[in-house]
């Protein structure tokens, strides 16, 4: 009844094209975005540099030797050595591992806490919504940096062993920044609920479980991915600021921010820049590339909003 000549021709042409899922078309757009592509390349290099790099360094098992402390960059130590004679290049690599890890874990805390609270507030609304949003308002009202630094100080008072301390730093950085994601998710869920396909689900009599996980969530994931990516970038910045002040990651665990705190001592700052410039450049490169990827993802998922 439905097929006639015209439809058949249309069909033949259409059959050749593969089904083009929104995810695949989004990633196609992402890879076409030059800046995002550059970001991905640089970020992968930073990951290789931090997680694989150390195994290539010849100074992996070098012991602390005051003899060759504070050497400027030379052919054995490409980036010189620090006051304990450790190879700065190796230290930067190992520090990268910590900084990246802190960034990713903190961002996942933001996504978990912010995402769930935002979804619950958006989906159930009314009382639950106002409680969560009131909580978010409170945290928004408190200035981030002072509280963060104060919490860092308290951490030192609680005398946590350095390696356990990283996880607490991740926790603090995450808990300070979940509010913006929760607001984003909440408004997205609210606007989705007005969409006609959600009303259709109501008419079709789908169960709540299906409505949330098959319809609401997949349409909220793009916003979460973008926010998570930018969250990693901000968390790395926050962690490095804390560590620079000596309140985040503390020796002996290395992190880029903590290495830069070497610049606090006037002599190192003035005439041993190889101690604090390389980790700074690493932070900058990592964060810039993540920001580019995040921005590229935002365009890829929602092409209507031109850059």
């Amino acid at each position, binding site marked *: 009844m439905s097929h*006639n*000549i*015209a*439809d058949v*021709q*249309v069909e033949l042409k259409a059959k050749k094209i593969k089904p083009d899922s929104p995810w695949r078309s989004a990633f196609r757009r992402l890879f*076409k975005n030059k800046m995002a592509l550059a970001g991905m390349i640089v970020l992968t290099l930073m990951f290789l540099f931090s997680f694989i790099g150390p195994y290539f360094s010849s100074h992996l098992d070098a012991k602390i030797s005051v003899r060759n402390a504070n050497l400027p960059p030379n052919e054995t130590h490409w980036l010189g050595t620090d006051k304990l004679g450790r190879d700065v290049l190796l230290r930067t690599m190992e520090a990268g591992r910590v900084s990246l890890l802190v960034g990713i874990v903190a961002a996942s805390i933001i996504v978990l806490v912010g995402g769930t609270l935002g979804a619950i507030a958006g989906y159930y609304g009314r009382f639950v919504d106002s409680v969560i949003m009131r909580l978010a308002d409170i945290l928004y009202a408190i200035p981030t940096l002072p509280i963060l630094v104060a919490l860092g100080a308290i951490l030192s008072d609680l005398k946590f062993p350095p390696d356990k301390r990283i996880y607490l730093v991740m926790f603090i950085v995450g808990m300070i920044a979940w509010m913006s994601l929760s607001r984003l998710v909440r408004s997205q869920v609210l606007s989705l609920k007005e969409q006609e396909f959600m009303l259709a689900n109501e008419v079709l009599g789908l169960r709540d479980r299906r409505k949330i996980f098959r319809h609401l969530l997949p349409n909220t994931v793009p916003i979460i991915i973008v926010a998570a990516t930018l969250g990693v970038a901000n968390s790395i910045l926050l962690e490095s600021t804390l560590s620079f002040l000596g309140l985040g990651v503390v020796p002996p665990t290395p992190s880029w921010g903590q290495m830069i705190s070497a610049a606090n001592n006037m002599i190192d700052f003035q005439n041993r820049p190889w101690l604090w410039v390389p980790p700074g450049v690493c932070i900058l490169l990592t964060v810039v590339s993540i920001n580019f990827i995040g921005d590229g993802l935002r365009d890829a998922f929602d092409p209507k909003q031109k850059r």
Partner: protein
Amino acid sequence: MSSTLVEFRNLKTYFYTEAGVVQAVNDVSFSIRAGETVCIVGESGCGKSITAMSLMRLIASPPGKIVGGEILFEGRDLLKIKESEMRMIRGNEIAMIFQEPMTSLNPVLTVGDQIMEPLIEHTLLSKSEARKKAIQLIEQVGIPRADQIIDSYPHELSGGMRQRIMIAISLSCDPKLLIADEPTTALDVTIQAQILDLLRQLKKDRNMSLMLITHDLGVVAEMADYVVVMYAGKVIEEGPVKEIFKNPRHPYTKGLLLAKPVIGQRKERLFTIPGQVPNPIGLGENCHYSDRCEHAMDICRASQPALQKDGADSKVACWLYEGEGAK
């Protein structure tokens, strides 16, 4: 027969998108005589709005570009003149109103301010004279309490009232040609009747030409003196309104007329044109309607029919009539 006011000659306007080149307006030619209402009719994506925007040279480039042809306005080719000269014509000799009254007015400026702008730009009126003229215009478009309306903001007015304000703005400098791009599509039917009646009235009083763009054949029958039917970026048929409705030539025009339900002339089953409008990217050298046309012949799938005279004042682009074109 009054003189020709506007003449499109082989106009080509393309859009360069990531997916490819969209030939939105592909070799379009027709003319508008002074004091005449010409209706450009066609379904979405046929290029009727782009034709109007090309005439006003308001094509955003990138991504759009007028790649060929001429648009003669009183003998002057608008595509060749400088931007500053074009600006003197826009809103002054050629004015335009749009489809969405809700978003066509600036929400943070008063209605009066927006009516006075073209007056101050194009005429030598002072601010106070412009304001008086604005109040007059508001009354002419049938809005009561004009002196209060002039200081109100667009969000305080209904859709119908905003469209009347748009008409007041367009008429402020007594244009020779008014372009109306689907002016009543977003309005309710009783408000649409009011606006169409207003447009007819104003056209008569001011002996102005009207280029009305619409997809509604009812509006065409009511308003048009001359009709131009477009499909996939090309003009496929044109002619006086009675000729088009009484004796449509192109299969697509016939299909449109039969597919539309008409009050009082109920049929058991509507004629349907199968398939859908072709993808504007990568249109071949064939007649673009061939894969939906029931009379499609091999030649239709091979090459494009030219727009040929067929009868006193009508033209059609279809291989069915190719032979008799000479008449």
